[in-house]
């Protein structure tokens, strides 16, 4: 998937992945896509909840060998 910006939140625990995501999105334009990498298992549910409450669109959420990858489109 194409993306405009990448955020490495691996090794960070709650609530840092969400706070970093919010900060990264703030520096982007509407419609751009942010890729987030994380290792916090709680981030799967949290990214969904963040998207739902902020109106940003979670395009995909995937897990591979203990790492999570998210693509979020800025509102």
């Amino acid at each position: 998937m194409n993306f405009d910006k990448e955020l490495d939140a691996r090794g960070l625990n709650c609530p840092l992945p969400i706070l970093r995501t919010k900060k990264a999105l703030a520096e982007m334009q509407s419609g751009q896509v942010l890729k987030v990498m994380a290792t916090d298992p709680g981030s799967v549910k949290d990214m969904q909840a963040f998207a739902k409450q902020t109106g940003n669109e979670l395009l995909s959420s995937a897990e591979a060998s203990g790492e999570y990858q998210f693509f979020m489109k800025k509102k």
Partner: protein
Amino acid sequence: MEPKKLAIIATKGTLDWAYPPFILSSTAAALGYEVQIFFTFYGLNLLKRDLSGLKVSPLGNPGMPMKMPFGPKWFRDINWNIPNAVQAVVPGFESLATGLMKQTIAQKGVASIPDLRQLCLDAEVKFIGCQMTVDLFGFEHGEFIDNIEYGGAATFFEFAGESDICLYM
């Protein structure tokens, strides 16, 4: 649309209890909430310029797992059951436990309290210090970070009365 509002009363001044108000406030701010925290009694310790005095005590705290942040996995998995009577008489036990806790916090990628507090300030979470507690404990405003407003119970209700979520911790 008006943003949702979160009001928190922070009353505890230990390292472990410093987490809930700062985690919830920074996250709520990231979700677009307007947030205010009223720091009262021991909670005022969380506003000190120097946060190195925050400690965690396993004494009389049966819910706290006592695990080591170093060594092989089997060793780290041991939950040390140290009786209160022993904890109470060993000098420096609390400092030792705090040191181990801070090591665990860093190891697990959990933010430090100074970092979380700064994230709250960056996100414009509003901090209110309880003036009565400042007087009661003989504190001075200079001991606390800047950008705090000082007020009393009525100040808290001004914001809390319009809040969507109100938490006491």
